[in-house]
């Protein structure tokens, strides 16, 4: 027996049996499609969550970052003394160290006067902490009193800020404090904040009157060129007080992501949803394959009497499972693509359909169908030709 025949004939029989009963085929495809969409959406939400959580730290321009050990994430920081950051400057490898002040505050919609909370970043404009051209270009204007930059990608509840600015309406309130929007930048919302605002460290203290410059939320450190980030990190860890974390850029991103994955734990919810999609799809495909074997029991027993071996029928079942996986995945993918666009328009967060995600979900669906096939082949031993006569 050659290889092509080994797989081709059972696959062809499986295909002919599948297309023979169109109603059941459609039902089976719907089951796989359902699981497919569920997994796509859950993974999509999860990736968006992680990506949005890292959107702000991703743009920070620094080599090492100080945070209080109790800071679970940048959006809910614990303050520590500015002097702790300044002590780091004693290390000869460190070129610059800047404090970053973080706070959540309500911003008033200029049109509707309603307030909604967003994230406020305060830092010395000359430090150019954010690697965003629109912010860097405005660093001189940011030095002025009561000026802010507004994130154009914030949720629409804050009002059509771009149009308002063009019409000259640029005065609003943050934390009941009157400020002037002097420009826009693009960063993006996260699960923690519906929008972002950037201001100078001095303005930050005016917006948050209870805060002072001595208590900082984060420290951003830039090293001299050609120094090892890891060795400086190790030196700082041993040199500074134990209550501060010293993160590299990658570690900071991971810390932000891990908050949502483990501490929040929204990541768990999406992971759980993914598994549930897998299980539901598994049960549906199993049911379809199981009843298929039951219905074809006589036919299989006949083939066995004719000299077909058990392995042939196992291949028939797995071929059916693979066909269902592919047939359900294609419409599932297309539907998910539409839903991703819908979700993007609702959440104002990017939800890209990446090749890696397509492959992941397909593997997921394939494993689901194979598992269903594995469970269903037990039913094959009922096809006993001795009971046929």
């Amino acid at each position, binding site marked *: *027996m050659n290889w092509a025949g080994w797989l081709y004939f059972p696959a062809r029989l499986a295909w*002919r*049996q599948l297309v023979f009963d169109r109603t059941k085929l459609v039902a089976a495809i719907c089951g796989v499609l359902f699981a497919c969409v569920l997994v796509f959406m859950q993974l999509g939400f999860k990736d968006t969550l992680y990506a949005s959580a890292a959107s702000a730290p991703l743009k920070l321009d620094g080599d090492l970052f100080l945070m209080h050990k109790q800071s679970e994430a940048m959006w809910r920081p614990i303050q520590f003394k500015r002097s702790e950051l300044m002590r780091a400057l004693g290390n000869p490898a460190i070129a610059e160290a800047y404090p970053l002040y973080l706070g959540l505050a309500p911003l008033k919609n200029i049109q509707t006067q309603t307030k909604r909370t967003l994230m406020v970043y305060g830092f010395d404009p000359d430090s150019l902490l954010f690697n965003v051209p629109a912010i860097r270009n405005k660093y001189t204007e940011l030095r002025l009193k009561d000026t802010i930059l507004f994130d154009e990608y914030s949720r629409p509840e804050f009002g059509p800020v771009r149009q308002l600015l063009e019409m000259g309406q640029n005065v609003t309130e943050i934390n009941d404090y009157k400020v002037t929007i002097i420009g826009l930048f693009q960063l993006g919302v996260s699960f923690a904040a519906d929008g972002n605002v950037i201001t100078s460290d001095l303005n930050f203290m005016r917006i948050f009157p209870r805060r002072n410059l001595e208590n900082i939320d984060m420290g951003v450190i830039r090293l001299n060129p050609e120094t090892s980030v890891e060795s400086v990190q190790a030196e700082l860890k041993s040199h500074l007080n134990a209550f501060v974390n010293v993160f590299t850029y990658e570690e900071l991103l991971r810390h932000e992501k891990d908050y949502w994955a483990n501490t929040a734990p929204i990541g768990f919810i999406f992971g759980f949803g993914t598994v549930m999609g897998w299980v539901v799809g598994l049960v549906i495909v199993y049911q379809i394959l199981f009843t298929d074997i039951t219905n074809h029991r006589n*036919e299989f027993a*006949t083939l066995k009497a004719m*000299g077909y071996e058990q392995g042939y029928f196992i291949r028939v079942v797995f071929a059916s499972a693979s066909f269902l996986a592919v047939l359900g995945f294609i419409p599932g993918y297309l539907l998910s693509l539409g839903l991703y666009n819908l979700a993007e328009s609702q959440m104002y967060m990017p939800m890209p359909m990446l090749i890696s995600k397509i492959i992941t979900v397909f593997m997921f669906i394939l494993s689901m169908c194979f598992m269903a096939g594995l469970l269903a082949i037990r039913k094959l031993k009922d096809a006993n030709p001795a009971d046929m*006569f």
Partner: protein
Amino acid sequence: MSNIIEVDHLSFSFGSGALTQPVLKDVTISLEQGEIVLITGPSGSGKTTFLTIIGGLRQALHGSVKVLGHQFINSNEQIKVKTRQQIGYIFQQHNLLKSLTALQNVCMTLEINTTMTEQQRCDRAAEMLIAVGLGDRLDYKPDQLSGGQRQRVSIARALVGQPKIILADEPTASLDKQSGYEAVNLLKRLAKESQTTILLVTHDYRILDIADRVVELEDGMIK
């Protein structure tokens, strides 16, 4: 003359312990090549059980059953699967695959061994269907065929692989007199052409005349 089937002192029973129900008692029979043997007998006489043992579908433990030179008593599955491929089956129900056309059903016999090309298989199967008078029904599914036509497809399916033995279990049971008689005569004609041995279980006395030999089984014993 070599014996295609040799059965020697075969005994078989269902169940175990106090519930043991003997079905076949000390059956001895042998069939020559090209011989057509009918087994008749009342219901429950063990005819069908005998046929399934000959076909290697049921494991018997006592006596000797040699089919095409292979001992079936206490043999492994592999030998039986190989032997089965040289046996054609005709069932009481036609047992055709509903999702396949007549041609594809007949091809299933040839697909066990993939030495032939697709074209050769289709040609052979079509020839066989023409021989059973269904040349104009090649692409019909079983649901679109009458009972007699279906049984003729299953005869074609049994014969297309040029088996050495045909085992048939009540092939006329679900057919009317006319189509039943036609079916077995067709079977006889084609089998005689290719020197195929036929073992046919029936209690349809209308078809006894096709046999070279009629064996009567009662309570598991040959009379």
